[in-house]
């Protein structure tokens, strides 16, 4: 996605962790590149659709609520990654999204497949230029 001057105020001084997190258009949401032919969705760029080989894509918003279909509680990670954390796959109305489950104690008693969650954002910190990076995860919605 190219950087464009936007008229939306809140984007000043904030950047999303990844391209597919949109911050500057009201409530945060995720977007995907959707194949205009078969509807398959991808979070990165593709030369052709992995499902049907068509070459036209459009950017579409992803539902911000979903259901956990797989998770793990990671206790051992690369240096610099705070553990434990919950890594999960969330079914957002038919689109599978990877993300951490946040704002909940990372304990098997608190996390289960089938639980409903919603998109949430958090600060990744402020850089030397005063710009804040915003990450996303999913928090329990029940």
């Amino acid at each position, binding site marked *: *996605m190219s950087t464009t001057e936007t008229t939306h105020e809140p984007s000043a001084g904030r*950047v*999303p*962790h*990844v*391209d*597919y997190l949109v911050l500057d258009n009201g409530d945060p949401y995720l977007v995907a590149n959707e194949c205009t032919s078969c509807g*398959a*969705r*991808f*979070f*990165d*760029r593709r030369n052709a659709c*992995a*499902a049907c080989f068509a070459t036209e894509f459009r950017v579409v918003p992803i539902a911000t609520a979903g259901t956990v*279909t*797989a*998770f*793990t*509680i*990671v*206790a*051992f*990670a*690369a*240096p*610099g*990654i*705070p*553990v*434990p*954390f919950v*890594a*999960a*796959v969330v079914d957002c109305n*038919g*689109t*599978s*999204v*990877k*993300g*951490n489950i946040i704002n909940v104690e990372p304990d*098997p008693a608190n996390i289960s*497949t*089938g639980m409903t969650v919603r998109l949430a954002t958090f600060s*990744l910190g402020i*850089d*030397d*230029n005063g*710009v804040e*990076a915003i*990450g*996303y*995860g999913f928090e329990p919605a029940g």
Partner: protein
Amino acid sequence: MSASDEIFILGINMTKFGKHFDKDVVDLGAEAMMAALGDGGVTMADMGILAAGNLMGSGGVGQQLQKQVGQTGIPVYNVSNACATGATALRTAIMAIKAGECDMGIAVGVEKLAGAGLLGGSVAKQSDKHEWEPSGRLGAVTGVDGRIGSATMPALFAQIGVEYGHKYGGVDAELFARISEKNHSHSTLNPLAAYTKAMSLEQIMGDMMIAYPNTRPMCSANCDGAAAAVVVSGSKLRTMSLEQQRRAVKVSASVLTSDPYEEACQVLPNVNTLTRNAAIQAYETAGVGPSDLDLVELHDCFATAELVHYDNLMLCEEGGAADFFNSGAPWRTGATPVNVSGGLQSKGHPISATGIANIWEVCHHLRGEAGDRQIDGAQVGLAHVIGLGSACGVHVLEKSALGSAA
């Protein structure tokens, strides 16, 4: 030379898996090659192709190994296909024979992995100036692993097992630990395994958590090792000694698949569909079914992975993997022994060696040479590996009917 439909393993070997501080990749690979050639009663002069697999090294291991065991000018294929690298090397040699390019070839897989630690995922680069700068395919301003899920091997395979439970039910953390208990128990009879200690359920569940529900002993052991196999066409084998013919093991199917597009495989690798596709193709080619298998070596890189592959290899009804395990079937004394070698969790997982070492295990039983852990009267076995990305290799092996007293 003409194209051959029949392929046999003539000689095969695996080194001891574990820590080999005094041996490098070339030493280990050469050791397995020399032993496989010796096992088959042939030399490098007989080989028409060398296929060599090694993931973590500097590349070109095949040519380095030739310099170690014999340079004859034959074509060398250096292959790299994640955890399916060994199986891919073997299949490369098999394809050359099937194509009629040669009648004998050798495949080797070797890895130095002891102490490698956590595999998979990527770590954010460090720089002096702290500035959020988008980079890479996702335009990420910092590392994503650990912040947007995790692509480390333990995290991915844990999710794959949990996902199976979500889909079919009847699965809890203890079930996965009991699968690990089985494999560690099996390993006590395998002198070539990296770890040969039985572990109780309590020990396994109480060990260090890596990625829930997998604790440390439920993860494959990073270690050093090599395995090599000599393959030969049926027509060539028929010109060889009766002893060579008797010990040869028939490759009834050699299949390699990758994952077809599925919605969720874009964010969590799908190890299921391509394994099922490979199994279907292998059973069809070999003319055998899951109930004919006397033993199975499947890719238990984590305890959570073993469960889903019971189902993917159709050892049970769809959705019935937990019941299959609970019935006792995959124990050494059960109806369908799985990972009699101890599996990757205790035998170890020197990545590129794994896809040939599992075939060595099956051959060992089909030849009646497996000693204390021998599955009596074994006639048919299956070896399976999967590498993320994904690549799946399935080989069906059968006791040779050649060279036996008519």
